[in-house]
């Protein structure tokens, strides 16, 4: 006979400030990676669709590379390589804590590959005649993209971009490989310290669920509003 596991949630309230700090780190990584991922992803999508072959090959290579390797591995590369690079190239003092910076860089570069595919599809969903009409009015490629094609493309893509952001938020938990205290990392640390790992991880899971579920409900609602507008 084994004894029933006795849950003990008492260590959670005291850990809340520390967990909150972790949540801030998670949100920080998510936010910067989403913004940078969309900007760089847009650039990649435009390169991929460009008629300049080296550019479209570069973008295709980039996207295929990042989509074919596990995120954890990309993050590890960044933890291991970037600090050394910065130390030797830019003369950063040895031992500077660059875990947060390299986590953000890793996420942003990785996510840009996914964003660029969403954005490419978004650009292609805008009828060809729109670019032609903009050109016919004398707009050059950049003006037509900026004023006519991209605004429509993004409008169609907003729900997908947000959904990808929610996925990214969950994926930030992978930074535990660098012992960076994001929300998941913080929960793990506290649980481990207090011998209450199960409770902590259940609690953390519930928090992730509530946030992501609420966010995706909001995206759906938003999507409906967009459609009727």
């Amino acid at each position, binding site marked *: 006979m084994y004894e029933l596991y006795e849950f003990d949630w008492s260590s959670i309230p005291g850990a809340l400030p520390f967990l909150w700090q972790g949540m801030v780190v998670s949100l920080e990584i998510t936010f910067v990676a989403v913004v940078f991922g969309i900007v760089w992803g847009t650039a990649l999508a435009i390169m991929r669709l460009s008629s300049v072959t080296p550019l479209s090959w570069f973008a295709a290579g980039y996207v295929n590379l990042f989509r074919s390797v596990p995120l954890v591995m990309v993050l590890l590369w960044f933890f291991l390589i970037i600090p050394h690079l910065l130390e030797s190239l830019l003369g950063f003092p040895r031992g500077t804590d660059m875990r947060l910076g390299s986590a953000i860089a890793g996420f942003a570069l990785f996510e840009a590959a996914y964003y660029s595919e969403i954005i490419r599809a978004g650009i292609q969903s805008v009828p060809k*005649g*729109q670019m032609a*009409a903009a050109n*016919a*009015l*004398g*707009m050059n490629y950049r*003006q037509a993209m900026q*004023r006519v094609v991209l605004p429509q493309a993004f*409008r169609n893509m907003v729900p997908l971009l947000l959904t990808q952001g929610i996925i990214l938020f969950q994926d930030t938990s992978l930074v535990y490989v660098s012992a960076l205290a994001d929300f998941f990392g913080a929960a793990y640390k506290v649980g481990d310290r207090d011998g209450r790992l199960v409770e902590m991880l259940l609690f953390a899971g519930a928090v992730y669920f509530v946030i992501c579920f609420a966010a995706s409900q909001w995206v759906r609602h938003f999507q409906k509003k967009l459609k009727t507008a």
Partner: protein
Amino acid sequence: MISIDNVSKHYGSFQVLADCTTQVSKGEVIVVCGPSGSGKSTLIKCVNGLEPFQKGEITVNGVSVGDPKTNLSKLRSHVGMVFQNFELFPHMSIIDNLRIAQLKVLGRGMDEATEKGFKLLDRVGLRVQAEKYPGQLSGGQQQRVAIARALAMDPICMLFDEPTSALDPEMVNEVLDVMTELAKEGMTMMCVTHEMGFARRVANRVIFMDQGRIVEDDSKDAFFEHARSERAQQFLAKILHH
């Protein structure tokens, strides 16, 4: 004004345009017609460089369209074009549709662009719709806005690619009326259209195309009374008894 000289274009081995030659003088109205796939749209899009061509030369007001040194954006900014599917910008209000290229291409100020926009909306009878979005307008109204948008650039000539063929029959005339008025004011126009009533009333010349070639290029009367080629006769018979 527009001179098309021996223009040929092909996609791979498929010839879309074969040695097309014609001229449009200032103030002239040319109607281009012909069966589907004969290259009408392609020809008219070559005139403002939206479609590249491999052989021959097109000049608009003396500027060569095919010359790589030509600033195509600048040339297009004063060649108006109206599309079959209107191609208004759906994310902008009607007045913004009329303003955007004035502001960004011609560098006009906001006040001037707005004033010009309203003046042209007045002219096509749509001033009250200025703040609406294209999706809220009927097809005929959208096409009138598209014409106004092109006119806002003070074009030296206008190209029309089947401007009424996507419209419900009851809306065709409101668009043709705007075009007729434009022609009366002396605008140089090249119109791809199957509206033969419009051609009879307004056109100076009619061009008939078939399989990428200009088969007939005649004064309107000559074309309607005795089209020379059998293809054009057949085409006319079909379209007039429609």
